[in-house]
Structures are given as C-alpha cells and as structure tokens.
C-alpha cells in the first residue's frame, strides 16, 4: 500500500501527545520498516557519509589498540600514582551512558509508561553499544588482553581464585551480567519486528536472514503469550541491574581509602550520574535521527519534554553529590579530605573542576523552562554539555584524587598522550558504526509496540482497556 518513495511529511511538531495525529496501524508499520527495506544500493547518501566517517574513527581505534598491544601501556600518560587515566575514565563514562537504555526499557516497562514505546528500541541499542565500548576498556587496560581469562574464576593450575573481595572482580560479574541481560532483552524485543521484516521484505537474502533471526516467529497467540512472559522476566532482571551496575562500579572507588574516593554517597550518586548522561546521550542521538528519517510523528516533543525532566531530576541528585563532597571534607575534619577540595578548587586541575560545575550544574538549569526544554537546538546543546560534564566528573574523581594522595613525596601530574585521546575518540567510531548498522538493518522503533500504542489511543473511546500487546 505505502510506497517507499514517501514524501517527507512537513514538520509539524506535536507537543502534548506521544503520537502525532493521524497515525494508523498500517502507517506505523510501513513508516518504520520502509526505512530498512529498500535495496542496499539505494542507501541514503547521508547514511553512507556517516558510516564512512565512523569507519575512519574505528580505524583510528583499531590502530591505537594495535599499538597498545604491541608496545604496551607505556604509550599512555598514566604513571604512579596516577595509574588510572583515560582507560578507566572512559570506561565509567561509556557504561554510564548505557544506563538510560535499561532504565527506559526495563523500569518504564514495569511501570507501564507509554512514552517509552517510541524510543526504547534505539535506547536499548545505545545501551548495548555503549556497554560494548565500555567493556573494552577494562579488557585492554592492562595492555595484555590475551590474559583476560584470568578475570574469571575457573579451575586454574595456579591454585588461586581471583580476589573475590575486590570490587574490580565484582565489576567482572556486574558488567558481564549487564551486557548479557541487555543483549537478551533487546533481542527478545526484536523478534516480532524481525518477523515483520521477514514478511515484508522481497529480496530472498533479506528474507532468509530476517527469517533466521526471527527464530520462526509466526505471531501465534502462544508466541505472544511466551513473549510477554519472557520480556517481563527480563525486565525484572534488568531493573536491579540499573542500580547495581553503577553502584558496583562506584565501589571500585568507594572501597579504596583515597580521599575523594572513600565516600559512602558514591553508589546513588554514580547511578544518578549514569542516568543523567544516558538520557543526554539518547537526546543527542534522537534529535538528528528523527529529523533525517522523518519520524517526528512517532517521536514527539512530548518525549523530549519527559526525558528533559528525567535529566533535570537526576542532575539535581548529582549536584547534591557535589555539595555533599564539599560538606564531608569540612565535616570529616581530615586534612587530607580538606586538601582534596582545596586542590579541586584551586589546584593545577581546577579548570576541570569548574568545567564540571559549569557543564553539569549551571547549564542544565535552563531545563526548568518548558519553553527551552522544547526548543530542540537548546536541548541538544544542553545534552552535549551534560555529556561533557559527566566526562569531566570522572576525570575529576580519578585524576584529581590520584595525583595528590597522602604523601607529598609521591605527588605527580597526569597528561594524556596522543594515544589516550585516540583510544577515546576512536571508541566513538565503534559506537557509531554499530549504531548506523543498527538503524539501517533493524527497526529502530519497536513496530508492534507503537502499533499497540496506536491501538490504545485510537480505540480509547471504544472502551478498550489496557490490552497488553496481544492486540497488536
């Protein structure tokens, strides 16, 4: 019925609803699957340019990793006492970004928040790719990734287990569980849509590949019933993970004795920070994507409004954390804690602390205004600021605490090298290559869930109560 050569709909923004008026069951399916189901040779130029750019960054990444593996971690700026540098900063930053996806897909599913429907698929994909980018850092940060199996508790000939009392070992479990559950959750949610693509695609190759991936889904009532159970179970599993993963990562610091790390507020403060920059990243990705693919009818201003509010709330928690740290320094009457704050305010890296305050605390305050919240350029800028700010937060925590510890004789400073930057910037290549492949080959919006939403909103008057997905 719908041709793939649709006219770009005129951009009329919808402010008060999760769907633009006039969406029907068929229009939703067509709209989303047409983005994917056109011949490979007709891939839009914008996508190709983006993919090439991301691919180049990925090459930079691979080059940096190859150098790291052949030369060793001496190519980085780390030293003693600043033994953790960009590797761990970027690890914590990326994994934090992932949290928004899990929050949107799991917690909001359990709370039956309909506004998640249009954005959850893309946000979950973002989670997985961000976790992949994050997970690589601990694997490579020793420069000897071929020994990574030592992380695992397996019956080795060493006669020693990994140190189970170390938070670094807890990380291994936290992150691998998180990655597994996220991938499963995402994939299970994809199956009905992959089946839709299988049925709608005309090329035999696409049909076979989508057919394989959709695991024989026929849309039978039994299938839907099992699907519901599986996604509810996975949502239940993911929900504690939103809280546990970043709490455990915060233990990497909080369990240590170092001033600036040994803080009990870290777990909630890290979780809030993760949600904060995760949502910022979702917004940064969604604003251009919905424009390029003409998805204004499915991702409306209402979505951005709700996400901004989540950002504002988590941002306030993070801000509370910053003030908390200053308070503890004074209240602890420990000269080391006190010096830490003085050093943050006035020390050699004071610029980074004040950037953190600017990006994470001051700029996001504009979100209090509904008008600015619904102004996409402003929102984009604020979200970028938050992403930068959260990166600075990890920098401040890691570098500023390490470079001044208890003994002045062991103080030193840290300067990132070319390879520090290239392993960071390059990781965006990995992220965007994966993300672009995702939006090209997989429905970036959950078709059947939006159909469900259409069904619910249009059949509102016809006394249809919450019917779950069975009606889709």
């Amino acid at each position, binding site marked *: 019925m719908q041709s793939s050569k649709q006219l770009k709909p005129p951009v009329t923004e919808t402010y008060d609803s999760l769907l633009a008026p006039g969406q029907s069951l068929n229009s939703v399916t067509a709209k989303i699957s047409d983005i994917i189901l056109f011949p490979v040779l007709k891939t839009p130029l914008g996508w190709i340019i983006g993919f090439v750019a991301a691919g180049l960054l990925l090459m930079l990444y691979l080059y940096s990793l190859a150098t790291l593996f052949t030369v060793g971690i001496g190519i980085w700026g780390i030293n003693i006492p600043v033994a953790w540098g960009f590797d761990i900063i970027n690890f914590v930053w990326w994994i934090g970004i992932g949290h928004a996806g899990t929050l949107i897909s799991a917690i909001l599913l359990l709370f039956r928040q309909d506004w998640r429907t249009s954005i959850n698929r893309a946000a979950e994909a973002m989670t997985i790719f961000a976790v992949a980018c994050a997970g690589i850092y601990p694997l490579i940060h020793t420069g000897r990734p071929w020994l990574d199996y030592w992380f695992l508790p397996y019956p*080795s*000939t*060493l*006669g*020693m287990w990994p140190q189970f009392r170390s938070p670094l070992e807890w990380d291994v479990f936290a992150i691998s569980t998180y990655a597994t559950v996220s991938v499963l959750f995402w994939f299970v949610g994809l199956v009905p849509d992959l089946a839709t693509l*299988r049925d709608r695609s005309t090329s*035999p190759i696409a049909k*076979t590949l989508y*057919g394989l991936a959709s695991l*024989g889904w026929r849309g039978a009532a039994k299938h839907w019933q099992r699907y519901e159970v599986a996604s509810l179970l996975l949502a239940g599993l993911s929900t504690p993970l939103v809280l546990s993963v970043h709490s455990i990562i915060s233990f990497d610091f909080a369990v240590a004795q170092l001033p600036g790390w040994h803080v009990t507020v870290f777990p909630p403060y890290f979780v809030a920070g993760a949600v904060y920059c995760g949502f910022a990243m979702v917004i940064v990705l969604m604003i251009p994507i919905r424009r390029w693919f003409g998805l204004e009818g499915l991702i409306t201003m209402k979505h951005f409004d709700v996400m901004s509010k989540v950002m504002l709330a988590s941002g306030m928690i993070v801000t509370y954390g910053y003030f908390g740290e200053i308070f503890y320094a004074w209240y602890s009457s420990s000269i080391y804690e006190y010096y830490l704050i003085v050093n943050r305010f006035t020390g050699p890296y004071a610029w980074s602390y004040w950037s953190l305050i600017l990006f994470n605390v001051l700029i996001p305050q504009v979100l209090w205004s509904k008008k600015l919240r619904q102004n996409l350029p402003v929102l984009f800028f604020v979200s970028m600021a938050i992403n930068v700010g959260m990166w600075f937060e990890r920098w401040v925590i890691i570098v500023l605490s390490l470079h001044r510890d208890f003994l002045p004789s062991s103080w030193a400073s840290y300067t990132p090298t070319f390879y520090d930057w290239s392993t960071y910037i390059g990781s965006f290549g990995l992220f965007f290559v994966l993300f672009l492949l995702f939006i090209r080959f997989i429905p970036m919006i959950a078709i059947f869930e939006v159909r469900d939403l259409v069904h619910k909103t249009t059949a509102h008057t016809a006394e249809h109560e919450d019917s779950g997905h069975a009606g889709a």
Partner: protein
Amino acid sequence: MAQVFNRRTNTIVRLGIFVGVPVILALLTATWWYYTRSDWVRDVGVAHAKVQPAGNIPGAGGYSHQLHVGGLKLDCRYCHTGVEISSNANIPPTETCMGCHAQILPKSTKLEYIRNSYEKDEPVQWNKVNDLPKFVYFNHSIHVAKGVGCSTCHGNIASMAVVYKTEALYMSWCLNCHRAPEKFLRPQSEIFNTAWTPPADQIAQGLKLKKDLNIRTSSQLTNCSICHR
C-alpha cells in the same frame, strides 16, 4: 510468497541447540584441560624425559642416577653442591666426573664425551629437566633446611636411569605444600634419602617439625611476593 524455511528447520535448530552446543562445549573443555594439565604438555614422567647429550637409552653412556646414587650410594651434595647453601642445586662440572673417571673406566667409549669435554674445556650441554618460568623465584636451600627432602619434589632419583620430571610444577603444587607443609616434612636426617616414605602419623610428626623448624604460617607462605619478586 513461499516460506523460506520449511518445517524441518525447527528440528535442525533444536538438535543444534540441545546436542551441537553441548558437544562443542565439551570438546572445548576437554581440549583446554588437556593442553593445560596433561603430562605430555608439562613433560612429566619417564616417557617425557628430556633427551640428554649421550642419548636417553639406559646404559648407553648417559649419566645414570640409578648407577651412581642407587648403586654407588653417592651423596647428592657430592655433585649438586649448591643445594644446601644457595637457590641453585647446581649441575656438576665435568671435573667432578673426571675426579673418578680419570681412573675408573678411562677407556670406555661410553665416556668419550666426558673426556672430550674435559680436554677441550667445553662443558657438557645437559638439558634442564625441571624448569620454572623466569618470573618465579625458587630456592633450594630453604626447603632443604626446613625438612623438605629431594624426593618430595624430584621423586625417587636413585631409581632413575634417566632423570625425568615427577611433578608438573604448577603454582597450585607449590601452594599445596606452602598451605600445609606438615603433610610433607621429614626429619633432617632423611632429606637425601630418596626412598623415604611418610610414617603413619605423618601429620603429628609434621606439625612437630613445623614447630621446631619455626616454619611460618600458611598466609605468610602464600604471599605472592615470596615467589614473584
């Protein structure tokens, strides 16, 4: 449009999941197990003895502990001079052999290589049998001084025509003793007795020795930097 997959696909996939995956996992585990702990990989046992300069056929001219230690009752320290005083036990120089073989069997063709080595002043190239990685620090003198006999680690040398490894020298093997040395300790008089067997009340004897010799606790002896310095 026709279905891409027919009904049989379900069966094939089920077979793959319930039979294929476990079989592959089992094969991988078995391979890994074999490559980390088989005698073949770790050169343990007489079948995997290192080939020495004069060959490994008993009686063909290689140095035999069976003959010199088992038969002639030579003391280990006669040749392995460092064993009580240094980390290395030392392999004897040709001069040690010539001390006897200048007189005993001076014409034996089997001892040709020893005489050559002596005349040309070129050491015999023995192949190292027990070889720890270089990142491990090991010390003979402390073990010998604290009631650990040669045969606990090297087996019954006096019965070996060709020396071979009797232990795989895993870290778990070192730690197994460092965690509970009493299971292996023997009186100082038995250190060089290669046929020593533990008495029935080994644990009681061992604990007494452990106390008398002031041997440290398990947590001290499993400290990583004892062996990885």
